[in-house]
């Protein structure tokens, strides 16, 4: 199914967001097919983390995983947003959302979501490292190699 328009509608009488530099998305850069770069292993081993989750979250993460396996990323995101409603500050859920956006080649959004996950993951070095790797990959796809390198260094420091 096609989903056009993935941008949230503006609230009230607000003006165009693009008038304000702070609200503007970073400029689009040429991106590359997913296969072109060597795979990095930012797919976490969620066992330890998931164990602390409620069955409801596990069920939703599982549903999201199955949808994304079939390439139905929007449906996967719907499941994950349900998880956000139940467990709003669960860094794993935000990380999974970042992965979905990455798979949809929405790299800026993937970076933002991974950063959000990182903020909430204070103390969880494994997840933080995984997030930084995802950020590094996203920057690579955006052609911003120096930002990507910085993110990689961050990830390495979390070993």
């Amino acid at each position, binding site marked *: *199914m096609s*989903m*056009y*328009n*993935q941008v*949230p*509608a*503006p*609230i*009230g*009488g*607000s*003006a*165009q*967001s693009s*008038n*304000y530099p*702070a*609200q503007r*998305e970073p400029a689009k850069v040429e991106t590359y097919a997913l296969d072109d770069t060597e795979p990095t292993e930012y797919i976490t081993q969620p066992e330890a983390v998931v164990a602390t989750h*409620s*069955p*409801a979250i*596990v*069920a*939703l993460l599982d549903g999201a995983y199955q949808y994304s396996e079939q390439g139905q990323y*929007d*449906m996967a*995101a*719907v*499941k994950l*947003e*349900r998880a*956000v*409603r*139940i467990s*709003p*500050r669960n860094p794993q859920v935000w990380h999974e*959302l970042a992965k979905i956006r990455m798979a949809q080649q929405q790299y*800026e*959004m993937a970076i*933002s*979501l991974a*950063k*959000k996950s990182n*903020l*909430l993951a*204070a103390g969880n070095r494994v997840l933080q490292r995984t997030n930084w790797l995802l950020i590094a990959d996203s920057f690579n796809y955006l052609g911003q190699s120096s930002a990507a390198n910085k993110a990689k260094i961050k990830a390495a420091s979390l070993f």
Partner: protein
Amino acid sequence: MAKPRNKQNPPKKQIRHRKAKPSRHLFRVFLIRLSVLALIVIVTYGAYLDYIVRNQFEGKRWELAAHVYANPVELYQGLPLTVKQLETLLIDLRYQRSASLTSAGTYYRSGSTFKIRTRPFDFFDGREESKSIRIRLSNNRVGSIQNIRSARSVALLRLEPVQVGSFYPSHKEDRILVKISEVPQTLIDGLITIEDRDFYQHYGVSIKSIFRALWANIKAGGVVQGGSTLTQQLAKNFYLSPERSLWRKIKEAMMALILEFHYEKDEILEAYINEVFLGQDGARSINGFGMASVFYFNKPLIDLKPHQVALLVGLVKGPSYYDPRRHSKRALKRRDLVLDEMARMGVLPVQQRNIAKRYGTGISSFKRFSGSRFPAYLDLVKRQLSRDYKEEELNSDGLNIFSTLDYTLQTTAEKIFKGTLKSLNKQYGIEKGKLQGAMVITRREGGEVVAVIGDRNPEFDGFNRALDAIRPIGSLVKPAVYLTALSKPSQFNLTSLIDDSSISLKQQSGELWEPQNYDKQEHGQVPLHRALTHSYNLATVNLGMELKVPRVKRTLEELGVRRAINPYPSLLLGALPLSPVEVAQMYQTLAGEGFFTPLRSIQSVSSNDNIALQRYPLSVRQVANPSAVYLLNTALQEVMTEGTGRSAYRYLPANYRLVGKTGTTDELRDSWFAGFSGDYLAVVWLGRDDNKPSKLTGASGALQVWSKVMRAISKQTVSLTQPEDIEYVWVDPSGLRANEFCADAVQYPYIKGSAPIEYSPCVGAVGRTLERAGDWFNGFIKSK
């Protein structure tokens, strides 16, 4: 078709006849020509009717209202939920108590155990089938959820959402389309028995029934019976005006023939079942058996029993005359007649007829929400959708709109809001009914709008103050000033001293601007956190002028304010008019710890046949340094414990660590409060539409509403995530570095490297040396 022409022709013929007497030949030629012309006209007209009939029958047959749903309730183990809350929820969803769970939409409670047979529902991400579920509550939480049949435990149970409103087509017809395969056979049998016995035999028009009707009418000396077939009735309802004339009757018959020529009996029957008018609910017209079933029995059509089906069939003759809600005796009599006829024709076993006749009308006391139950919220939904959909699409395509509204929360907030405004109005001696207000509540994470109130009487569909009351935000702007400062850790921290002394500035108009503190006092050198906590105006203006006003303007834009901002000094004290929803957007970034999240009232939209059309996904963007926001939020927590927001803790537990800010404008015209708990962000504005003073400060007005609502809805205390570059350092009241042994010393968070270096006299020489040694040691360890 030919008839009216002929009717007009005879006089013409006579005139011609007289004049053309000399030549019979000419007359014959003329007659032939006239016949050819008539034939052409008939054929053309027939083709035209054919076009009309097919065009509408094959195109979009009906304009369907769009339905807006609240966010569904999801039950899972551990969810805080009381017996009363769950029961209220089921009642709101129109579940009926039934010990045996006979059909979907029933439940049974014994003590704190519920058995529920859910209704199926098509969600955006798939269908939830009907299930029989056992839920045990213990200690005001969901203890377990179990599927009764499989005895397996269920991780997550999603109930169908409450429908909270509709966008109707201009004619206000409301219908739920049904397919012929979803129609009970008893309904089809009943309809045919009562309305058109030869339905499966005739070609659209039935000579037999015309004569039968004619005979009946002659006997009665007036029109008592129509000879129309179901097809004719459909043609009439579908294409023609309700007037009664011979010409219309002929047109109707022609259309019926055309319909029968092109379409199968089942297609015609299906269209009829969906088209027919079956009741009136205020301005809303109930059309089709699908909608009528819900309207009268609160059940899907397929679930109806024979006595219910017969009642609906009886309604076709006169929905208002036989209205079962107003004239139940009449409706019952008519129903029994339908049942008798069905039995007589052999489509209903006599035994079943006898059982059916024992029932009363069994009408549901509940009529579905007509129009909009939450007008301010629906207004927001409509505006957000109007960017992507045209007005006609919204009103006629039968869209399913899944909103982010929380039904329970909205209802709770409305009740408290209404009551509190009423008592404030009285308590402060404000002209009766003049105190107005608005409220917006969102989820702290994700930016979903869960409740909107736009009027002191929340159900009133009028001026929506939550979106359209653009009022100066007063001190609500101050967090932007302090965030601008705290984003420069080399210059400012929470304990930096700021000058709270009078200042006068020349305005653009040339006038002098001399702001004052609320208490008309100057407080001298005050720590930054205290200036914010007590909302000192002079300190804020001095700080803002040092930072430069355009820089503050930029911070506001980063936080999400998208209205044009004038970078005048008066901005620093809130000469910035915003609507409550815009304020919510701004504070959302603080609640999101530096991440901007666009507010959303819609999750997704699906088509009438449940095809996913569009999603409005969650998105975030980091716009402010989380460390600076952390410092600001810490200070805003102090607002609630020691400053202008203190009175919130009269309602909420002391461990809630609330974050918020009051706002009051000149002469008490506007009373604002914006803030968040662990799970919700809420903004309240109170004031008068005529902009006269409302006699309320942010604390005495808006905060009271905010606190009472938060007490009712919030379940989570605030936990702020401490970024890695934040350290806590002891400082004395003058802002010098201290330690835990110093009297009056307090710990404040600092961005690393920005804490005060100079030691307070209370730290002795030994202590100082030890601390430095400790620092050196820590640094040594780290560098390793």
